[in-house]
């Protein structure tokens, strides 16, 4: 059986015929070639695969692509184009050395942006709670927490400027 799915991925309308058992993570990586989203586990626990579905962070390894039909999906690639400046959250991760091997980073950043969208000035405890579903085997987490707080504040300032200008 194949089913047709149509959705907006990183601002672009796409439509594909797929096997219904296709996971959302398989869809974005293998069907759309957006390999920034990673798969780090089989148990839905590591968070390397986090994307935004209709504006909320989800684990794309635990969602079927058909569940996103008609919806909006944003992956790590949506944050900044290859030759343009980094998104404030990405910049904060770079600045604060919040990655080593980088495997967990796409999921960490997407979970962090989701938090910042809800909470522009998160406390350390808020960051810990928001990143419970994201595992990093390299950094020891402290630089990630610092980066998420800085990134959230930077996003907030940027939004403030955008509002001033608009």
């Amino acid at each position, binding site marked *: *059986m194949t*089913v047709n799915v149509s959705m907006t991925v990183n601002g672009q309308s796409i439509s594909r015929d797929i*096997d*219904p*058992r296709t*996971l959302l993570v398989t869809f974005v990586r293998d069907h759309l070639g957006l390999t920034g989203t990673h798969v780090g586990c*089989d*148990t*839905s*626990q590591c*968070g390397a695969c*986090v994307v935004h*579905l209709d504006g*909320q*962070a*989800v*684990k794309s*390894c*635990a*969602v*079927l692509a*058909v*569940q996103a*039909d008609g919806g909006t999906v944003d992956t790590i690639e949506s944050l900044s184009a290859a030759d343009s400046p980094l998104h404030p959250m990405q910049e904060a991760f770079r600045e604060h050395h919040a990655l080593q091997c980088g495997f967990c980073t796409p999921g960490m950043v997407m*979970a962090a942006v*989701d*938090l910042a969208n809800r909470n522009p000035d998160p406390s350390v405890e808020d960051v810990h*709670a*928001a990143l*419970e*579903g*994201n595992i990093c085997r390299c950094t020891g987490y402290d630089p990630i927490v610092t980066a998420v707080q800085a990134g959230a504040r930077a996003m907030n300032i940027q939004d403030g400027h955008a509002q001033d200008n608009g």
Partner: protein
Amino acid sequence: MFPFDYHRATTLEDAREAHAAAEEPAYLAGGQTLIPTLKMRLAQHDRIVDLRRIPGLTGIRRDGDTLVIGAMTTHQAIADSPEVIAALPALAAMAASIGDQQVRAMGTIGGALANNDPAADYPAAALALDAAIITDMRSHKAADFFGAFFDTTLDPGEIIREVRFPLAEAAAYAKIRNPASRYAVVGVFVARTAAGPRVAVTGAAGQVFRHEAMEQALAASFSPTSLDGVATSPDGMNEDQHASADYRAHLCGVLAGRAVTAIVGAGSR
């Protein structure tokens, strides 16, 4: 994952028909249990019937002294709901303790109750608060609904529509979270109700249960010290790499004490 065909239901009747026409079908709600299970090939279904687009299955409302939550309402929506926070703050806090942010954004109360994992959180809340689980066919009392190891009184094809929680005078939930999965190693939900105190324990045994000895002790005097002499037998408790049966029995007392302390400290409701 084994192959399956996919049906997106538009109404409850449509879902029932699509379910009845298949041999080994499964309903799909948030997918946070079903999809990981399919991925590991621990289950095989010839058809998945998606309930998510059926109108009218989400939302939270007060109906007199009852809080009514639609089956497809997510854990996160329950955790964030001003109605739940005002009427049953312990339920909102319990929902916020499930899994992680991403799991809560997809997982639903109906899916969690239908799944009845012996370490899941909602069964403890439903049993302690004497909830009613309303399906497209009938109403189940939480006291009868939960069987051993994932079993429930749902018939094949029966769909949970909503859950009705009578408000308690006060309630609290205390849980030791498995550090990897966040499921309850043991979780104890204590409710002070007009009919007396109710204590429900999840994670400790093969199914959620009421701790009657603790209820009697709390009925005599609602204070954490009342629980001091109340023993919990390790017979029939789960024993695994996370905790021995003896340790789980011990945690029942510790967590009930924490929940009662939270209630007494917080005053009413």
